[in-house]
């Protein structure tokens, strides 16, 4: 059994079910991300791991210990909060050592710990300041310092970066990852930002409405999302969802893409067993923007590439890429093209798609057909 094990954990207030049975297991040293929109229950789950909220039913184990009835201070955890929650009346030094003091660590040892943590986070020069004299990034570091000082089994992060500006957020993200790699600590990290989830985690639980929609590695979540929700939530710009009818020709799965005047059959590869029942029925084709591009950017060695023509409606340069929007089967479809590909609104452009990486979803159950 691993560092954290959550078994069929539920939370309800009367008839409102906040969490509907969560199962998650991670090993020591893993970085678990709980990601989802606000109100999905991710923060509630984190608070329950911390012992700040009661569990309606189920079990939480931290380091092989059932902690359901332990108060936060006995769970061997530390937590970093969105608002940092630094004690405003205490200096940085006192903030970091408060928990040590309560645990009756000898003063000399407290001092040594504070020094070490401060060095590591490069906040030694701030130790005698009060939190209101610090910038947002510095406060963030102090909050992490407070957590690190205790050296717990489990670190909990509750949207720690969302109060920082965009540039600082990216910097701190890198630092958190670096810290995790260096120290090998076990982390549970809550965020609503799918980019943070992808970059930081080595396990991601995508949550919605009190349920885990998919639990896996970032690559699994990205490449083989379990359902339309996960597919749409992860990835920016979001995956294109194109309604189509599944057809079969010579053992190949085919869907037709109609740009309004022409129709192109897209070959998705050999028809799988799971796909067979859907032949002749409506499906949703999920294809990421980077799987539709201009001819110059397409890698020629991909065997499955197919050409389609699209009526360009709008182009949005992002710098490294230009996002090109056109319509297929009556919905907007985004393609990621090279900025020098010369796409312009109004023209008909030739695009290359890689349908072998496209996914099919059941429009009724919204689950991936696989």
């Amino acid at each position, binding site marked *: 059994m691993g560092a954290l094990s959550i078994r069929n954990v539920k939370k309800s207030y009367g008839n409102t079910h906040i969490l509907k049975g969560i199962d998650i297991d991670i090993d020591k040293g893993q970085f678990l991300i709980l990601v989802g929109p606000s109100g999905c229950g991710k923060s509630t789950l984190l608070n329950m791991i911390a012992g700040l909220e009661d569990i309606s039913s189920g079990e939480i184990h931290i380091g092989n210990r059932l902690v359901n009835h332990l*108060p936060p201070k006995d769970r061997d955890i530390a*937590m970093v909060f969105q608002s940092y929650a630094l004690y*405003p009346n205490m200096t940085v030094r006192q903030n970091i050592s408060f928990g040590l003091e*309560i645990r009756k660590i000898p003063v000399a040892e407290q001092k040594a710990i504070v020094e070490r943590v401060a060095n590591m986070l490069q906040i030694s020069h701030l130790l005698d300041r009060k939190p209101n004299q610090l910038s947002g990034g510095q406060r963030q570091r102090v909050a992490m310092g*407070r957590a690190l000082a205790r050296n717990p089994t489990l670190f909990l992060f509750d949207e720690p970066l969302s109060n920082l500006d965009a540039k600082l957020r990216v910097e701190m993200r890198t630092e958190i990852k670096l810290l995790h790699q260096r120290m090998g600590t076990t982390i549970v990290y809550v965020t609503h930002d799918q980019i943070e989830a992808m970059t930081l985690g080595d396990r991601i639980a995508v949550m919605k409405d009190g349920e885990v929609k998919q639990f896996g590695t970032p690559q699994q979540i990205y490449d083989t999302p379990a359902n339309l929700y996960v597919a749409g939530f992860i990835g920016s710009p979001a995956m294109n969802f194109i309604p189509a009818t599944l057809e079969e020709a010579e053992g190949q799965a085919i869907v037709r893409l109609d740009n309004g005047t022409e129709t192109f059959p897209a070959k998705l590869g050999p028809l799988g067993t799971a796909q067979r029942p859907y032949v002749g029925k409506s499906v949703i084709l999920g294809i990421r923007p980077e799987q539709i591009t201009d001819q110059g950017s397409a890698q020629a060695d991909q065997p499955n590439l197919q050409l389609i023509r699209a009526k360009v409606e709008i182009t949005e340069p992002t710098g490294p890429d230009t996002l090109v929007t056109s319509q297929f089967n009556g919905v907007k479809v985004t393609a990621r093209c090279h900025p020098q590909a010369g796409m312009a609104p109004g023209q008909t452009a030739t695009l290359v798609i890689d349908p072998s990486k496209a996914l099919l979803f059941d429009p009724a159950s919204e689950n991936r057909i696989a």
Partner: protein
Amino acid sequence: MADLAYHQTPAARIGRFGIYAVLALFALYYLAPLYVMVVTSLKSLEEVRNGNLLALPAAPSLEAWSTAWSSACTGVECSGIQGYFWNSIKMLVPAVALSTLIGAVNGYVLAMWRFKGSDLFFTLLMIGCFLPFQVVILPMAQMLGFLGLENGTARLVLVHTIYGLAFTTMFFRNFYVTIPDELVKAARIDGAGFLRIFFRIMLPISLPTIAVCVIWQTTQIWNDFLFGVVFSAGETQPMTVALNNLVNTSTGVKHYNVEMAAAIIAALPTLCVYAFGGKYFIRGLTAGAVKG
């Protein structure tokens, strides 16, 4: 509010002048009684009778002040207001301290350790702010009798503490709800419990609220007359009751200079509080206004 652009047209200038004139006139209206009190208190009774209200004293003298302090008649007693002044102090200090401390703990619980029924409790307490005290003084007098509490000062400390709690609790509760819950969560994870979080974190960060609360309670309790006149008698009466007795003692000549000196002495403590803690005083008034 907005920077409204003033174009320096003649009409606008006249308008500005008018505004200043109105504001200055009102300043005179507010200052006049204080001025009259001070100059009257420095005059001899002779001069009060012959001179006019606004004239400066010809030979300023503190005699009326010393009479007021130590030998003026408040009813049958003629030993000045000094004893009553100290009565008020003796009542004020414990009542302010108790109601502030209890209010702080209550506010802390009602904002950060909510339990089933705690919101209802707060609502009930707030509705209590609206009660005219006339509706509770008869039973209170009965109850103080049952309790056998004879000492007027002790009675007033108890009554002022109880009826101050609604406001003091509100001040602290409304301050603590602006503190993120996460602060308490962080402290709990650090291992601190209910009392330690209160004394080590919440109380130290509430200094401005403590100032608001102490100033509010000080002015309320010092200036109270109703409780004083109802729950204390004779030598234990507070300052306001003594001042009223002094002014309304209708035997003999009216010593207006002494009355004014006594009134200023009665006003001085709260005026000082206002002068030094005006910011917190206003904050308390407006905070009280928002809720009740």
